[in-house]
């Protein structure tokens, strides 16, 4: 039975705790959180979970196997290093850090210690996006030559408050806080671009970008772009859609639906249109708290630790996503195409 500690019991910390609490291979044994309001809730409503105001106290006093770090982004690096030095398996909420220079020591340490790591790029577990990856890899729509992606929500229409609106703590605006999910998904699907070219608009937030247009440039014939904003009226929920053009067909995917067009027969697909919806792709999970993809992600992490399985979105992979993200910021600032050096 893996003993888990959670650092930062905000929205994501509570969500992961609720899921892991129902995984039969692990137990949430403690949380650390600076807010008294949250700590008192745990003390009042579930005294089996030990509470700490300071995460270092938790690490030194509790005998933990695995740590979930769900704190504000600027704290990730320091916390991840302490956990890895303590030989713990580490889950980090996305993004890895506020930028690559903060993320680098975490990457280097993670490569030296023999512990599992995962960064919370949960969109890979949304049924429609998961199946899209399998379809792309199957080669049924041929070689991918172009993609267009969009991620938008109605969220920010005035200057924000809290750590997310402070670039020193969050690392930036809509790109690092929201579009990083999309960047991860696009890199998972199509590989890491060699160059990016982006531009920002910050109409609502004083210091953070609210809108981002970005081109991904690859060495081969592949081109692609994405748009992301958190200031789109009437989008009550986050919506992500990707249009993928291959030499033998096309995929249109969003959170709810996946449509495939195959031009010439390929494997089990006769030339023509195919469609899958979320309900038909979904399967039951141990507990659903805010989306089955979170449960599948967390359950896979626990299984991967137990069985020593490979995790695709581990710290080294998330570091590469961070490099692309940094380049997106750099390009918007310099108004120039930025090369991503590996």
């Amino acid at each position, binding site marked *: 039975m893996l003993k888990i500690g959670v650092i930062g019991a905000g929205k994501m910390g509570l969500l992961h705790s*609720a899921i892991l609490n129902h995984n039969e291979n692990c137990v949430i044994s403690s949380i650390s959180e600076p807010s008294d*309001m949250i700590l008192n809730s745990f003390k009042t409503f579930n005294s089996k979970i030990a509470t700490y105001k300071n995460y270092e106290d938790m690490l030194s006093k509790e005998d933990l196997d695995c740590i979930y770090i769900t704190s504000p982004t600027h704290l990730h690096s320091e916390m991840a290093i302490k956990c890895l030095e303590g030989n713990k398996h580490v889950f980090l909420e996305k993004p890895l850090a506020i930028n690559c220079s903060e993320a680098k020591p975490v990457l280097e340490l993670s490569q030296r210690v023999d512990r599992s790591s995962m960064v919370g790029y949960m969109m890979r577990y949304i049924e429609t996006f998961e199946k899209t990856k399998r379809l792309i890899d199957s080669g049924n729509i041929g070689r991918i030559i172009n993609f267009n992606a969009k991620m938008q929500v109605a969220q920010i229409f005035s200057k924000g408050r809290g750590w997310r609106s402070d670039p020193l703590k969050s690392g930036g605006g809509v790109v690092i806080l929201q579009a990083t999910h999309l960047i991860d998904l696009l890199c998972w699907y199509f590989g890491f671009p060699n160059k990016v070219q982006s531009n920002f608009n910050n109409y609502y937030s004083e210091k953070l970008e609210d809108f981002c247009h970005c081109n991904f440039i690859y060495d081969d014939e592949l081109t692609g772009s994405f748009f992301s904003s958190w200031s789109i009226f*009437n989008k009550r929920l986050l919506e992500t859609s990707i249009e993928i053009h291959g030499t033998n067909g096309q995929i249109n995917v969003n959170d709810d639906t996946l449509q495939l067009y195959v031009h010439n027969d390929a494997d089990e697909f006769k030339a023509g249109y195919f469609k899958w919806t979320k309900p038909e792709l979904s399967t039951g999970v141990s*507990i659903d708290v805010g989306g089955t993809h979170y449960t599948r992600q967390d359950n896979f992490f626990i299984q991967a630790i137990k069985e020593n399985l490979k995790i695709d979105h581990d710290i080294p992979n998330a570091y590469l996503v961070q490099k692309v993200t940094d380049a997106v910021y750099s390009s918007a600032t310099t108004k120039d195409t930025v090369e991503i050096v590996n």
Partner: protein
Amino acid sequence: MEFQLDKIIIGHNQFFGVDHMSSERGAKRAQYFSKIKNIIDLLHFAIDKGATGLMLSTHPRAKEIAKAILADPALKDNLNIYILLPYVAKYIRMANEKGMINMITDALKEATLKDKIGIALKGGVGFFKKDQISILKSLIDLEMVPFRGLKIKTVFLHNNLTDLNLGLGFTSVLHFFNEYIPQKFSCKGGFCTLNFDQLVKSLSNIDITHPVIMAPFNGAGYQMNPNPKVCEETMLAYPTHTIAMSILAAGLIKPAEAIGYLKKIPQIKSYVVGASSHDHIVETYTLILDELGK
């Protein structure tokens, strides 16, 4: 008299642009229902076809709908209202925008300003930090403000919160909700959940028997965690007042097929059904009334 749920409860998703199959279709419906008259006309039509209940979430527009119902005696007298609180999307957005702690503190400040709902607060927001139950009471009272005067049958805790508390092992919060709602609003407290099996068993462990529950039941097994078989077994083993939701699995299955499945679970006596169009209402409501007993 024994507690009885309404057989057909009109769902609210279409009014607010929620469509789990297509956000584009959701947006179109939201546009149509942005006119309150279109909502009211649809409610009259649904009542005429046999609906006697209406689900209302604490969406920002719910106040406007509640006001229109109160002004229309035919709706006010013929509809039992089922409230779903809180409006989670709003709180998630607020938490993303200003952090979870600021979100709770701001909501509490708002609650204290509304002295007319009788929130006795001594010593400002700081007081709440020590008393978790007072926080919950204030947040519930605040959410309930728009619905005063309506004929409320049950107040449901939103599945995000039911399931979060269930997951965290905070079952005493569920116990509190179940006690507080009848005491304060003279109606039943209920739980919306995507984890029917675990919830019913957990409630039974804290001596809540015959709970009012709203959970997905459909032939596709969609959102029936951990799987349909376990949910069906739990339904047989534990007495509950259950409202089946997502009976069409977000549009995946046709009404006739959906009813065929529900027929096999006679313990369910109440169904929440969307009311996106007149045709949809006629088709599903007629099937439910004909096939699932009057």
